[in-house]
């Protein structure tokens, strides 16, 4: 039974069968209700509130209450701000480059560490560490390491004869630094998902291919890779969205600087909402952000369906 990770496929069999009776359906709805209530109470009110706010006028220069309705003015304000577009571009660069790098490195690591031997298992366990450390803490350590005089990155580089750049004061390298930290922290996540997926690939198929005389790389490409597309899709979705969302790294490493070079979308929203307290503009900006998120999720749905259709 092929299962889509995004669960858009048809179930094998409609459940209106002898398997689900009336009391059964009651039980199922009872199971669903607590979560439903929690989500409605905790998510719906703030989201609706934010939506309504995005159409009113409210920033600190007014009183404690939101002002009147101003239609799309807040959205227009955000969309006409060149800083917003710059931030969107920077976020795009960071996400695309970061996720691509993480996919490559993660798959490579998964392939390297796929055996069941103790060394491999320990290595996989140890590599989990970057994922669980607090992003604020990780970013601060990297900030120390990127220090152009006393940090280990440049010290190591000069040991092999390269003069390292002024990482966090350079418009280009500061973005690279953010990508590096993001990759360092989250490649293990990619590795774990891909290696689990690899473990599920039936060995007979791989062996059959090598018996047929296909080389290691050919086998990988033609037999295993197609079976990993599901895992790839999941990883790319997750990492893209999480990477767009992350604030701690930029906040700690560069604060969006120098200038606006490493200003990301989330930093933009943060500055708008929690520094300048332009509540309604921030709400509007968040919804614009969500449009991007929606597009990505929908794209992943499509990709996932296509990959399923290809392998079924």
């Amino acid at each position, binding site marked *: 039974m092929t299962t889509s990770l995004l669960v858009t496929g048809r179930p094998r069999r409609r459940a209106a069968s002898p398997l689900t009776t009336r009391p059964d359906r009651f039980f199922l709805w009872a199971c669903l209700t607590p979560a439903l209530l929690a989500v409605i109470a905790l998510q719906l009110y703030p989201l609706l509130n934010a939506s309504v706010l995005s159409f009113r006028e409210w920033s600190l220069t007014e009183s404690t209450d939101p002002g009147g309705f101003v239609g799309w003015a807040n959205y227009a304000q955000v969309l006409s701000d060149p800083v917003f577009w710059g931030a969107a571009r920077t976020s795009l660069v960071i996400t695309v480059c970061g996720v691509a790098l993480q996919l490559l490195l993660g798959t490579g690591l998964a392939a390297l560490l796929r055996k069941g031997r103790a060394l491999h298992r320990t290595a996989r366990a140890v590599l989990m560490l970057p994922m669980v450390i607090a992003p604020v803490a990780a970013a601060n350590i990297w900030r120390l390491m990127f220090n152009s005089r006393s940090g280990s990155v440049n010290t190591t580089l000069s040991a092999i004869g390269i003069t390292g750049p002024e990482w966090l004061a350079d*418009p280009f390298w500061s973005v690279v630094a953010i990508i590096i930290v993001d990759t360092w922290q989250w490649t293990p996540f990619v590795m774990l998902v891909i290696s689990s997926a690899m473990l599920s690939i039936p060995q007979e198929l791989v062996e059959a291919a090598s018996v047929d005389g296909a080389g290691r790389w050919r086998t990988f490409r033609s037999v295993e890779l197609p079976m990993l597309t599901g895992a790839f899709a999941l990883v790319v979705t997750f990492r893209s969205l999480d990477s767009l969302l992350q604030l701690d790294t930029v906040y700690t490493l560069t604060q969006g600087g120098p200038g606006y070079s490493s200003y990301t979308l989330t930093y933009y929203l943060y500055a708008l909402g929690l520094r300048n307290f332009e509540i309604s503009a921030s709400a509007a900006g968040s919804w614009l952000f969500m449009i991007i998120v929606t597009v990505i999720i929908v794209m992943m749905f499509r990709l996932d369906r296509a990959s399923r259709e290809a392998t079924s």
Partner: protein
Amino acid sequence: MKTSLRSRRVRRIAGVLAAGSTAVALAACSAGTGDAAGSSKLVVTYMDSGTYNVAAEKFAPAFEKSHDAEVAVEAFPFATLGQQNATDLITGTGGFDVMSTSAWDVEIYNHLQPLTSQIDKWKNRDQYIPELLKDGPSPYASGDQVGLTYASDAYGVFVNTDYLPADTTFADWDDLVSVATGLKDTLPSGVVPISFAFGAADQIPSIFQGAYDSYYVTKDGQWGLDDESATKAMQTVGDIAALGTPNAASLSIDEANENFLAGKAAMLIVWPSFVRGALNDDSRSTLGDHWAQVPFPGPGTPALSTWSLSISKLSKNQDLAWSWIDEFLTPEHSTEWMFTYGIGSPFASTYSDAELLKKHANDLPVQAGNLAKALPLPLTLKSFDPFNRPMSEFVSGRGTAADAVAAIEQGWSGLKVPEALISTAEANGFVEK
């Protein structure tokens, strides 16, 4: 296999449930510690800095006893103090009675209680530096003073007296730059003329403010600069960067200070309160007493940084709140804290105190002089970003001085200047004539 899986799972679930119930019990306990039964309660906010909040916490017990009240000192890190204050006020929560406010909180000044009547009758008023009571250095809303400054600092220039005499006085920033350039050839290798934290973008405007003496608000009530003077001042910023270490653009405040403390720079430009402690500490400074603060050159003004105590309009203990301010902010306390905690005193008496002058003659008189001239820039957090970021870009090699000024003007276009700020800007001479 299923059975062992299940029993393992059951054991795990049991353990987790046990931990969970303990946690819930603990949570219930912590949520249950409500307000202690007492007469009144006062909540005061300070920055969690190891200095301001410690001074407040040390003072609180005496206040609690003499007023039979309970005092809670809420300390927040620098980044979140403004956010916490503002959130409390704009949501109408009223959880804070006395708040530490800075010039960045200008947009919430209208939520603060006017203190004019209390200050008029204040017993310590005469010992206070008069310029600091004015609109700008102190928070004002609609013509009323809404905060009393308890910590004040003015941007400073320090010299290493091995290379420059202690009584050096620069005519203006151009003079400073030419003196520094002259020094370049005579300094030993490894020593640079000027050390400054260009890596901390929010510090760069302080040099600009000293070199630029024109307006920040146009006749039309928008933020804007006189392009010609601004370009010249911006060029000065660039010149100073060129007179520093090769990695000047990435220096943090700590690192810039360290250069000076280790004797690797002839001049240091920084907030004195950030370096005063280390300068007076032989374990951290190699200079001994071979240093002095010199007057901050014009034609502009030294940047002023203040923390003020304000009373929230939502406070239910207005009188108690004023008592806190009155008893916290005394010449005795401020003089004591100036060197224990490095909190810049706003009282003139501190700077003419005989005892202190004996030890700190190379610092205090100049500090007092700078404080009397210093002004905060008429900007909000929102307009500060488009102000300092182009400067940071310029310093890291992108574009010319004129480009940076144009970028500032561009970033400011379309921004609204709050009402409270325009009157303050006028009072401080920052509006275009």
